[in-house]
């Protein structure tokens, strides 16, 4: 029943794809991880996920934008429950999922509708299959065109109503036929009751029937069979069976089915059939069942329509979600893509937990086993699959979990929980057989990525994050692709080259758009405020006790009594901890030839000085640490009071939360932003009077500890407003000057202070003077033995490094009566924008000046580096950081990128030409010609299976026919010989045909 359709129908959401909710859940979990850890990488992942989900939401409306149904062809007659084919013409973009429902007005205004066919439509005209609906006459067709776009996460639909000729649906033939009376056809000149063939009789003899002549009895057969057998006289008359159809039986469909069965049985015997409708005792006129169509039409409406079943009350309806997505299966490619997308997060988690290649291989093998078992050609039994999954999960768990490392409840979180989760993750792979569980698996993988982003601070995080996001995106897209396996027939015209190019480009532009919107969205999101208090990471990768209580130790743990290890020429060697500032005495003439390796990675929303020690006493060349070891606390959660000279308490300023990840073995100095009030480290810690912290253990690489500090909100104005600090007086030790301080030093200080109204201005003046008159030089000459180092630096050499510059500033300030001291530690010199951590390298070991202000306590001033005052820090967004990271990467690796891009291009071109060469070698030049010819004809509308001559008919033209014959000759003629001229002509003809096809 062909019908014409409309092109407009409202676009409505049809619901999420199977298991798509898992992505939303994973996103929420990701938000929790971001809030708990404050990792920028998680925020990036979340934004990418948000963009992907938003794209998934709008992808289908784009595809269905111009969708319309031009027409539907349904068979005029059909049978309930038997296969039927509908031909649907759909405009717009493909592929779309098409569902055809037939409807008829019921008694009231409510229409009943039944689904008859559904399937994927990949071209303008497609055949979809289904089964016949309930018996009756159906007048209306509703076609629902649905799609989830290329991303496949959220379905939208448009429903079109098509008016067309009614479809008649008859019940299937019943097993028991209706009562039948065989009759000879009077029209053929044979009297009624004359012997005819019945359907359960032999050709030669048959059982006795009423009306048979006694003369026809075949006595020998009767004797053998024990019943009366008559001779079957073959007649050439056309037989006719009269079938009785009883009205009012209460089940019209069953009666129609029986009648259909009887009529078809008559036809199968080559007889005609008539139907007599019997209503009680009234016998109607027999009417001829001429052909199957007429029979089915009669059976569709015989004895009135079937009663519509009463609606099922809601509490009796089956529980379960009806999904918008029609397909449930996961194709093999998608399944392996899922395995790849699972492996990346697993590696991301395993690496920071300290696992190596072996353990990664174990997890990879588990994931691969799951993928392999769920994609087998012959699926294994569910029980076997589950037990194998259990075995694999237990195996992975056993390989990963090190029970001996578990000693405290907290260590369970680190040494058992992630491992168990990974084992469960591997087991989930064995359950990943349909789209719902596939998406759940991918969502868990996404959560793992977020988790890894939360705990990882290394510089490979960005690359892993990018790889994971790409793999997750590809896998999730592959999972959502339309199922191709039940191939729908139809004129699947191969797309033209232009269309193919556009289709090939669409994912690239889509990905680019997604990346741009991710960065754009991140621009408005500020960098998270550091790790929340719930998840303060703190652990020691190795416990090495320090022997000397409260004393300094080398990274190896042995007490450090004197200064740093001294090398020839009073220059110390390369190790990080050999910086002289990390000892009890700091000789200002020493700097050390410090290396370039990363020493500390610090997750903190703002940069600050990571202070290790302060020095108060100065003898002209060397600064000394106070003798007092300070107050010991046991931990693991240490709380500290205000240190000497500090003003701000916990409640007085913003909290700055920092987590330190030592990347090399460090001594037992706790680096922290000034005014630490809380420390998480499972070791005894001494808080010295000056606020510096020392642990009872050294801090080996791979450890982590978290510090909470009070951050002052000092700005230039607030500092300047506190006036001249010298006038306020200060404890003697902070204005102590060595006896060697020269008069010209004091004079310089007085000169620089002249005309200023506040100490802050003095500091600025000293800073300016030092910038103008002194050069930073790591190779500065050493002061003469016994002389004053500051005098030598200020007036003789005028070259020096940070220790000397800071000392000079401190001495100048002290000579004016301003309380000042020296602090040493690390400055954050770089930012890892993806991981969101500050990086300090060995040569970032630094010395600076702290000046004590009455309102703010100790405020750091750095005459050499440019760390801004706390109150001046800029707000940065994650997007800005990401942009910086990408820009930095591009500028750093421009030649590599160009080379890599070029290489990729070369590889692609080489691959294509290589494939073409292989094909040419395998198929021969005529074979390639044949393939192109077939493709050209298929594009022109041929089915593709026809012989060449028929393909040529589609392409039209003498040349096409000639080429088809030449191709056949080359394949099948024994006398064929390859002729260059013929081949060249064939090529020319083919190129013209292809060209014509493109137009």
């Amino acid at each position: 029943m062909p019908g014409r359709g409309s092109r407009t129908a409202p676009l409505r959401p049809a619901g999420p794809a199977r298991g798509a909710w898992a992505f939303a859940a994973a996103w929420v979990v990701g938000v929790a991880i971001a809030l708990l850890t404050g990792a920028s990488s998680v925020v990036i992942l979340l934004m990418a996920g948000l963009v992907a989900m938003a794209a998934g939401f709008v992808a289908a409306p784009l595809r269905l934008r111009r969708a319309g149904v031009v027409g539907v062809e349904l068979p005029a007659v059909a049978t309930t429950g038997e296969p039927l084919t509908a031909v649907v013409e759909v405009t717009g973009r493909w592929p779309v999922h098409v569902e055809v429902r037939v409807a008829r007005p019921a008694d009231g205004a409510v229409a009943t509708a039944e689904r008859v066919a559904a399937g994927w439509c990949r071209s303008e005209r497609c055949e979809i299959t289904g089964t016949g609906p309930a018996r009756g006459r159906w007048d209306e067709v509703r076609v629902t065109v649905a799609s989830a776009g290329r991303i496949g996460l959220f379905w939208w639909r448009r429903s079109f109503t098509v008016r067309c000729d009614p479809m008649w649906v008859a019940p299937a033939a019943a097993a028991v036929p209706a009562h039948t009376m065989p009759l000879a056809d009077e029209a053929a000149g044979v009297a009624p009751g004359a012997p005819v063939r019945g359907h359960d009789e032999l050709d030669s003899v048959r059982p006795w029937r009423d009306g048979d002549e006694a003369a026809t009895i075949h006595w020998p057969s009767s004797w053998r069979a024990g019943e009366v057998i008559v001779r079957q006289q073959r007649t050439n008359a056309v037989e006719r069976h009269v079938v009785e159809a009883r009205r009012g039986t209460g089940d019209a469909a069953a009666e129609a089915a029986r009648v259909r069965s009887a009529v078809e049985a008559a036809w199968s015997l080559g007889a005609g059939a008539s139907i007599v409708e019997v209503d009680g005792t009234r016998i109607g006129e027999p009417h001829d069942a001429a052909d199957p169509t007429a029979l089915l039409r009669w059976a569709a409406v015989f004895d009135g329509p079937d009663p519509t079943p009463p609606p099922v009350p809601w509490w009796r309806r089956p529980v379960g979600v009806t999904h918008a997505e029609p397909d449930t299966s996961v194709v093999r490619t998608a399944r392996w893509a899922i395995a790849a997308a699972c492996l990346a997060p697993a590696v991301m988690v395993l690496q920071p937990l300290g696992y190596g290649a072996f353990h990664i291989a174990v997890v990879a093998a588990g994931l691969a086993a799951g993928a392999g078992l769920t994609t087998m050609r012959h699926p294994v039994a569910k029980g076997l699959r589950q037990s194998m999954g259990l075995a694999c999960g237990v195996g992975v768990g056993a390989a990963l979990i090190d029970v001996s490392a578990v000693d405290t409840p907290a260590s369970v979180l680190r040494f058992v929980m992630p491992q168990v989760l990974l084992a469960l993750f591997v087991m989930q792979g064995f359950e990943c057989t349909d789209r719902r569980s596939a998406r759940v698996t991918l969502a868990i993988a996404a959560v793992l990525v977020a988790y890894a982003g939360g705990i990882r601070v290394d510089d490979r995080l960005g690359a892993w994050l990018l790889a994971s996001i790409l793999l997750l995106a590809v896998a999730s897209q592959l999972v959502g692709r339309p199922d191709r396996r039940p191939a729908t027939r139809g004129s699947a015209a191969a797309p033209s080259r232009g269309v193919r190019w556009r289709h090939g480009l669409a994912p690239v532009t889509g990905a680019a758009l997604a990346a741009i919107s991710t960065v754009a969205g991140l621009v408005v999101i500020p960098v998270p405020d550091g790790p929340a208090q719930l998840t303060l990471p703190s652990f020691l990768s190795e416990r090495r006790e320090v022997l000397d209580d409260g004393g300094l130790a080398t990274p190896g743990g042995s007490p450090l009594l004197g200064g740093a290890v001294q090398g020839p020429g009073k220059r110390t060697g390369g190790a990080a901890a050999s910086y002289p500032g990390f000892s009890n005495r700091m000789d200002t003439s020493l700097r050390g030839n410090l290396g370039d390796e990363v020493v500390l990675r610090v997750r903190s929303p703002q940069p600050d000085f990571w202070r290790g020690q302060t020095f108060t006493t100065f003898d002209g060349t060397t600064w000394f640490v106070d003798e007092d070891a300070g107050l010991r606390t046991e931990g693991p959660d240490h709380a500290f009071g205000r240190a000497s000279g500090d003003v701000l308490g916990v409640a007085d300023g913003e909290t700055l939360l920092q987590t330190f990840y030592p990347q090399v073995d460090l001594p037992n100095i706790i680096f922290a932003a000034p005014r630490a009030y809380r420390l998480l480290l499972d070791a005894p810690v001494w808080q010295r009077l000056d606020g510096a912290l020392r642990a009872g253990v050294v801090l080996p690489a791979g450890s982590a500890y978290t510090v909470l500090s009070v951050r002052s909100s000092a700005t230039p104005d607030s500092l300047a407003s506190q006036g001249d600090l010298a006038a306020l007086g200060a404890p003697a030790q902070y204005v102590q000057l060595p006896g060697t301080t020269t008069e010209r030093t004091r004079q310089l200080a007085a000169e620089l202070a002249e005309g200023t109204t506040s100490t802050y201005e003095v500091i600025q003046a000293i800073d300016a003077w030092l910038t103008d008159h002194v050069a930073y030089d790591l190779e500065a000459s050493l002061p003469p033995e016994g002389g004053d180092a500051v005098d030598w630096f200020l007036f003789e050499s005028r070259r020096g490094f940070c220790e000397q510059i800071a000392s000079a500033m401190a001495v100048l300030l002290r000579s004016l009566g301003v309380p000042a001291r020296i602090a040493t530690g690390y400055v954050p010199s770089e930012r890892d924008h993806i991981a969101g951590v500050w990086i300090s390298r060995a040569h970032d070991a630094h010395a600076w000046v702290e000046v004590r202000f009455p309102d703010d306590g100790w405020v750091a001033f750095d005459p050499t580096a440019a760390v801004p005052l706390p109150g001046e820090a800029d707000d940065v967004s994650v997007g800005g950081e990401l942009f910086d990271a990408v820009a930095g990467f591009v500028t750093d690796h421009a030649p590599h990128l160009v080379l890599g891009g070029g290489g990729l291009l070369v590889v692609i071109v080489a691959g294509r030409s290589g494939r073409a060469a292989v094909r040419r070698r395998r198929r021969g030049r005529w074979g390639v010609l044949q393939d192109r010819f077939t493709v050209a004809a298929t594009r022109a509308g041929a089915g593709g299976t026809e012989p060449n001559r028929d393909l040529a008919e589609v392409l039209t033209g003498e040349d096409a026919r000639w080429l088809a014959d030449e191709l056949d000759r080359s394949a099948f003629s024994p006398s064929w010989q390859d002729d260059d001229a013929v081949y060249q002509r064939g090529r020319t003809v083919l190129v013209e045909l292809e060209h014509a096809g493109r137009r």
Partner: protein
Amino acid sequence: MTPAVTSESPTALAHGHRVGVALGRAVGGVLAGRHDQIEVAVACVLAGGHLLVEDVPGVGKTLLAQSLAAASGGAFRRVQGTADLLPGDVTGTLAPDGDGFGLRFRPGPVFAHVVLFDELNRANARTQSALLEVMEEGTVTVDGVAHRVPEPFFVVATQNPVQMAGTYPLAEGVTDRFMAAVSLGRAGAEEELEVLAGRRGRTRLDSLAAVVDPAAMLAARSAVRTVHLDDTVARYAVDVLRATRSHPRVRLGASTRAGVATVAMARAFATLDGRDYVAPHDIARASRATLAHRIVTAAGEAAAEVVDECLAGVPAPRR
């Protein structure tokens, strides 16, 4: 008039080609239009098979058979099928030998090069069956003595499938003996005009002379058998046969003999096209001619459509 083709031709295949073309032209000079059907008929003659012409009366069934017979040369006999026609009337019987007491075999009308059996389905089943042996083996056995019919031997039968009252539908065994069945269909308006104007039709039959002699026909037939059939093409024919057997709406698929007929017809088509090899489209075309009348479909299905569906479902071989 078309000159007669003799067997003295440069190569055997070229000779076969010329015989076929000459036959086609001769028949085409009598029968208006229907070139495809004429080609099938000519191919059937070349392939050494028998032809069944089915259609309603008055479209030129008999004319096709007569013109084919006339153009092929050799002895021509005609049998009109009726209900009381007996096997002996067709094949020949033993008759008293002159004045003596012996019996002599008196050959029936099948002892000719071309036999036209008009309205075959009006003859009774016994008579139809009597044709089986002569059509398959070229011999008539009477009283234990086999008599050979002349070579080449070619039966053209016609039947009217619509007016079935009082007929004996051909059994599967009989239809299987016919290599090809052709349904003529009505001529187009232009062609009908040709007939009415006397430029085509029965009036032209009298002026139709034989274009080949029996010897040339035999040579042409043996030439056709030498046309090369590639294994992949033969496999295509087999696949089409198998497709008819597994088709859901077919009750009885095509036999192996149908496959032999298909290949023979395909060779003849290739010869007509002047080729020394069978191409896949020859198989496709031959299948349409040889399979439709052999398969038994479910009620109300057109066999030709079923064959087309089978062909569409089997990918043709290519280089």
